């Protein structure tokens, strides 16, 4: 008992999964791209402002008729139709796009996991009722729900707490920023349905295992059994599904911004940048190419990572 000081921590299932993930080249590529992308959008705008003075909403004073220039040393991605630096805008837009993907997924995760786990564990009539509600929401096109939410509660009509959140965390309490925060929740609220089904299915197969009975026999309360004993056991499929939800939410955001009801100017997201670029595709192709490629690269990486995680966390379902 003198030299051995560090108690063994035990190899968890996570460590095994991590090893399997590292063997998957595409997943590692996806992870590296995502890490670089996150670093770029996090510190990129500050570096650009510090070195060149450009920001996402800085319009250089000029009397030229054509303000959009192709890529150059000064503007690596060119400028948009108002002369704003496209790189700064793509990075700033990446912040919003990634935030939408991440926060909406977290919202959908919170709702879906607790809803599905509760329904699955309680079972019987309650389960039946809860899952029929899911079926009903499923049958309504989700984009319709989001459009209704955004147009009814969007802009100046938004909830007080959304304005408060956007002031606190978005840096501005104006209508544009509120719209972005509303978008987080609107997309989260429509994305939890499949998550709830996945978790319910997992819980249904887990709840008859002896360890649940053992937990009940030691007097653990129902919420504690659901959230402390069952939910951690569903994390594998949940993480996999969440990584695949992120790109789908980002696509939905891009689609909404493309339609003009998502992110509003002066704020930009990859979707709204693409929408602007499409208008001028024939003359200023770089306005579409750069945001489009950046976004596609990110979505690819997320999907690679999601597939890799599925193989790593659930080796039985692996197909060769």
């Amino acid at each position, binding site marked *: 008992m003198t030299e051995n000081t560090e108690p063994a921590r*035990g190899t968890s299932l996570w460590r095994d999964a991590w090893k399997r993930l590292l063997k998957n080249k595409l997943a590692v590529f996806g992870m590296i791209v995502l890490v670089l992308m996150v670093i770029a959008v996090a510190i990129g705008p500050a570096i650009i402002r510090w070195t060149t003075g450009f920001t996402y909403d800085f319009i250089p004073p000029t009397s030229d008729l054509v303000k959009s220039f192709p890529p150059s040393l000064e503007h690596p991605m060119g400028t948009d139709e108002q002369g704003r630096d496209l790189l700064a805008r793509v990075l700033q837009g990446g912040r919003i796009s990634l935030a939408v993907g991440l926060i909406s997924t977290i919202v959908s995760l919170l709702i879906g996991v607790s809803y599905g786990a509760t329904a699955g564990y309680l079972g019987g009539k309650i389960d039946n009722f809860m899952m029929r509600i899911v079926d009903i929401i499923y049958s309504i096109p989700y984009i319709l729900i989001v459009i209704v939410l955004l147009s009814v509660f969007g802009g100046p009509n938004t909830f007080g707490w959304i304005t408060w959140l956007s002031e606190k965390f978005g840096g501005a309490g104006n209508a544009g920023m509120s719209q972005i925060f509303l978008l987080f929740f609107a997309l989260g609220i429509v994305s939890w349905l499949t998550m709830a089904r996945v978790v319910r299915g997992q819980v249904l197969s887990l709840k008859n295992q002896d360890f649940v009975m053992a937990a*009940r*026999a030691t007097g653990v309360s129902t919420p504690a059994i659901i959230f402390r004993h069952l939910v951690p056991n569903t994390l594998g499929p949940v993480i996999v599904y969440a990584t695949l939800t992120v790109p789908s939410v980002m696509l939905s955001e891009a689609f909404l911004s493309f339609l003009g009801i998502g992110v509003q100017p002066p704020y930009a997201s990859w979707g709204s940048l693409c929408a602007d670029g499409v208008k001028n595709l024939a003359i200023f192709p770089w306005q579409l190419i750069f945001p489009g490629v950046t976004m596609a690269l990110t979505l690819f990486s997320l999907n690679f990572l999601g597939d890799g995680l599925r193989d790593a966390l659930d080796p039985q379902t692996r197909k060769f």
Partner: protein
Amino acid sequence: MSETNGTILSVRDLKTYFQTEDGIVKAVDGISFELAKGETLGIVGESGSGKSVANLSVMRLIPEPPGKIVDGEIMFHDIDVRALSIDEVRKIRGKRIAMIFQDPMTSLNPFLRISTQLMEVTRLHLGHSKAEAYAHGVNMLQMVGIPDPESRMNGYPHELSGGMRQRVMIAMALSCDPELLIADEPTTALDVTIQAQILELIKDLKSRLGTSVILITHDLGVVAGMTDKIIVMYAGKVFEQAPTAELFATPANPYTKGLLKSVPDPVHEEGTELYQIPGLPPDVAHLPPGCPFAPRCARAEDICHREFPPFVQINANHHSLCHFAKEVYAESVQEDLQNV
């Protein structure tokens, strides 16, 4: 521990039924027993005889629906368990009545560290702080004979063998020093050498802590050296109830005799085929009108197929559910005398 022989658990005429598509299954149909402090009760029966359901009923762990305790009385000390709210039952579960299960491979949560699972019980019932619960957990692991408990504490269940996991389950069950431990086939899933170790451990802890034990098993060999008295269950009913030594020496029920004959005896029966009771346990949803064992019973007569047998008292502590209980008992006494 104290020598008082007060009754801590008394079950009277307990009936637990399950509503299935096939009709009402009377899994437990009017069983009664009593357990004194420090006593060990063995409940023996084939699969589906209702032995587990009876004990899950005591802890109010019957899944409802389809199951329901329809009648009877469960008194734990002077607490009427059936009248308690679920919150009140939860305060008893794990603290005053603990349970260990058949398959240690699945009764520990595979995603949580041993420490998390051990600490949960004491933090819940004894109000331990994290540090207290951790120290207590290490002590408990030490007590159930797990080597190097400090490092095992931080491990996961899959790193332990079956026997070790059952030891962890026992540690968890005993960590609040319960008055009653229900062991539901604690050794069925383990191999024979480990079985003996686990039984020895339960026996040892029981005598050290003064815990009462209900040992559920289908293996008469397991209860022989462990218990003070035995209940033999068949088709949801108590077929015979007697002190352990008496039940083994002079059984008063043909079913018990059949069970005893089915235990392999390597000394006397070398070369002969092992006896087995003919037929299968009955479908509890569709019981015949007479004695449920009659179709398999060698000495069944007309009355057995027609009328439900009486619960005959042989002596103060010995009862048997049979039309011919006294006759069977007399035969057993004869055989016993010849053997000695």
